[in-house]
């Protein structure tokens, strides 16, 4: 056993796949940051709102006023440095920290793919992604054109993370709403009536079911089909079709492209060496600038990672957490989609069409009461997200309680009138209207102030 592990850890591979991955990752992150800024989202999501929803334990992470732009700039520059392989270790650490900080500033914007980027950049801190075709390793010791080699596990760890994302997303789709009712696709797809070619198809009920089942099977199987050499090319074509289709149908930004480029890592190094050869030719007009972009030649002895003794245990812990965390919902009673206890950070993607309408009633010691106009404190996007997510509702209730207490109201109580609708079910109360939320502390305990869905969604 130990021998098997040791021999696996000693296995080496061409550095080209990881180099191509690094370049793709860096460029796409750079583009994502530029796109984010160009849409004006830095201002509308982080500067304009007067209140920000924090993750439990991270309420010290807040937007930095106009320095928030600086944060995004650092993140973008770090992404560019990653792409060109300049001060890689420092750049990837900076990227991981700045990107994660951005995501922690307000959980209103939580997206699984942002979480994925944080994880991926954390993982990349420990990988020798700059060994090949980078500014960091300019001086070739000899002039043959052979690619340096790196440990096999460093490439495999990326494949493993991608596989976890897909496979867990597939597991999450094994539920009765998704498979037996074709929800929420049955709500979403018909509204795409305005797409040429596809619009008509999207109205057909069998299409909703076909998409649901195909989506589930795709997510579960694609890691294996990409790993297996004979099916790899077809699997990759499926990846492209699947993600392009999701891009056409849903407003999911850069995620499809990130997944398509990432999936290239499953291919043999020969493909990546061709890509690098192509890039080298493409960049040759800039050779005076980028002359150093070259090939460190360490052909015969495997590249030794300095802190491998530390890195391997760190990665083992990292992946163990990844494998366990999505199951934490099992520790909570009640319907996961309704209470959302353990919903995030679990690759539950596109599973719910959920909306809510939530009014907060402030009652003071003398019995006087009034409802809060949410748009006095929240942007419409925040209000939308808050209206159906219990942890948002609780955090906002505390904010309101503190706000009105500081305004001189005595003995403030905060009650909630909250209706939500899930996957086409008629709206019903989500929160017990008799619960004074200002008295309830946020925690990882079960939220017993929620009312039940009174319907069971079977499955994982």
């Amino acid at each position: 056993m130990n021998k098997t592990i040791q021999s696996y850890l000693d296995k080496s591979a061409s550095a080209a796949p990881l180099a191509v991955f690094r370049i793709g990752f860096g460029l796409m992150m750079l583009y994502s940051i530029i796109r984010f800024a160009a849409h004006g989202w830095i201002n509308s999501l982080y500067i304009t709102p007067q209140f920000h929803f924090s993750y439990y334990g991270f309420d010290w992470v807040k937007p930095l006023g106009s320095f928030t732009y600086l944060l995004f700039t650092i993140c973008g520059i770090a992404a560019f440095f990653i792409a060109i392989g300049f001060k890689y270790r420092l750049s990837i650490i900076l990227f991981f920290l700045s990107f994660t900080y951005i995501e922690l500033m307000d959980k209103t914007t939580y997206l699984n793919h942002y979480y994925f980027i944080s994880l991926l950049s954390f993982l990349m801190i420990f990988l020798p992604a700059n060994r090949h075709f980078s500014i960091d390793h300019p001086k070739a010791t000899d002039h043959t054109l052979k690619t340096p080699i790196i440990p096999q596990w460093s490439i495999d760890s990326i494949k493993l993370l991608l596989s976890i994302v897909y496979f867990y997303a597939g597991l999450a789709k094994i539920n009765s709403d998704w498979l037996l009712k074709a929800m929420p696709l049955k709500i979403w797809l018909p509204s795409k009536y305005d797409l040429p070619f596809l619009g008509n198809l999207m109205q057909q009920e069998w299409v909703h079911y076909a998409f649901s089942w195909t989506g589930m099977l795709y997510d579960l199987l694609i890691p294996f089909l990409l790993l297996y050499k004979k099916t790899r090319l077809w699997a990759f074509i499926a990846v492209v079709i699947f993600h392009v289709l999701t891009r056409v149908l849903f407003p999911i930004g850069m995620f499809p492209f990130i997944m398509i480029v990432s999936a290239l890592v499953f291919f043999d190094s020969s493909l990546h060496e061709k890509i690098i050869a192509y890039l080298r030719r493409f960049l040759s007009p800039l050779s005076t600038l980028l002359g150093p972009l070259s090939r460190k030649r360490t052909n015969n002895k495997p590249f030794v990672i300095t802190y491998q003794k530390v890195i391997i245990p760190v990665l083992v812990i990292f992946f163990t957490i990844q494998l366990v965390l999505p199951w934490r919902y099992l520790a909570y009673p009640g319907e996961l989609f309704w209470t959302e206890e353990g919903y995030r950070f679990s690759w539950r993607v596109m599973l719910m069409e959920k909306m809510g309408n939530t009014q907060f009633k402030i009652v003071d010691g003398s019995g006087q009461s009034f409802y809060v106009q949410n748009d006095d404190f929240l942007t419409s996007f925040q209000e939308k997200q808050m209206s159906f997510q219990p942890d948002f509702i609780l955090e906002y209730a505390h904010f309101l309680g503190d706000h009105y207490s500081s305004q001189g109201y005595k003995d403030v109580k905060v009650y909630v009138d909250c209706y939500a609708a899930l996957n086409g079910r008629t709206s019903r109360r989500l929160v017990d209207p008799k619960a004074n939320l200002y008295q309830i502390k946020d925690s990882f305990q079960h939220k017993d102030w929620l009312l039940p869905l009174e319907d069971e969604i079977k499955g994982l």
Partner: protein
Amino acid sequence: MKIKQLALALFSIILITACTESNDDSTSGSSDNFDRKALLENAADNIIIPALQDLNSDLTALKASKETFITTPNQTNLDNLRTDWLAAYKTWQYVEMFNIGKAEEILYGFQMNIYPTNTTDIQNNIASGSYDLTSPNNNDAVGFPALDYLLYGLGNDDSAIIDFYTTDSNALGYKNYLSDVIDQMDNLTTTVLTDWTSSYRDIFVSSTANTASSSVNMLVNDFIFYYEKGLRANKVGIPAGVFSTTPLADKVEGLYSKVYSKELALTALQAVQDFFNGKAYNNSTIGISYASYVTLLRDNSGSSDLTASINSQIEAARTELDQLDNNLYNQVNNNNVAMLMTYDELQRVTVLLKVDMLQTLNISVDYVDADGD
């Protein structure tokens, strides 16, 4: 070899995507069996334009009776002026929710019905004699609420009010202001109506895509926004003190005429229900509407009948509202509990519209457009 295949596959798919994405708002032929263009045509031709035309003719009548009144300010002419004001104000309840196109562009609603009106601003405008009625600062000094004050609120009784237009040292100023406010309302309405009848109608009815800026989506967004703010909050919730520690009776619509506040709210509720159901403004024809859209989608997905729920909840709200005093100002001061109960029923309509209906229609709402996943 492999690379070429791959490149070819990639290229063709990207090409398809590119074509698909570039056309996303030019399709007018709908691909499901619901005709959104017919919905928009019904809204434009049978509801919005007829209501605007009616308002326009009401305001023409109001202008005429205003001319008569300022020529001869007496009780009879004041009564006629008030009658025409009320008629136009009730018609306005059918127009306010359509804050779209030219109406949105020129801030029509803000210049027609911001209340409570600011009597200090009105008095200052009259005293100075120079004012820009279109200025945002004057939004609360123009429109129907300003007329409410000028026709009912200047004095304690009618003869005291008439005195302002006859014997007051600045009677001319009062006459001019009354006249200017009415003329301005008439101009604005003509502008909005002309835009609808000349060009906007065709643009409006052909914008059937599911994008944040398409007519199908903007219309329902405006409708819900109006219901929630313009009707539920402004007419009932705010005066009842739902959003404040104490009731604010003087925030009712039609504060100075007193007895019309409930009637205006009932009219608005009827207008909301009629629009939802696609009922024509001038007759009882029922056309294609969001109600039929909801019914179709709900039938498709096998859920309970949302259209019926919305209508019966509106009925429930109407029943509560109907029991109130004609004068909501008195109602708030004498028995605010009934007012609050009315609000609760109205609020339940909000949930059905904002949560259930929007979820069913799956319409792109005009929230910040961030990515989803």
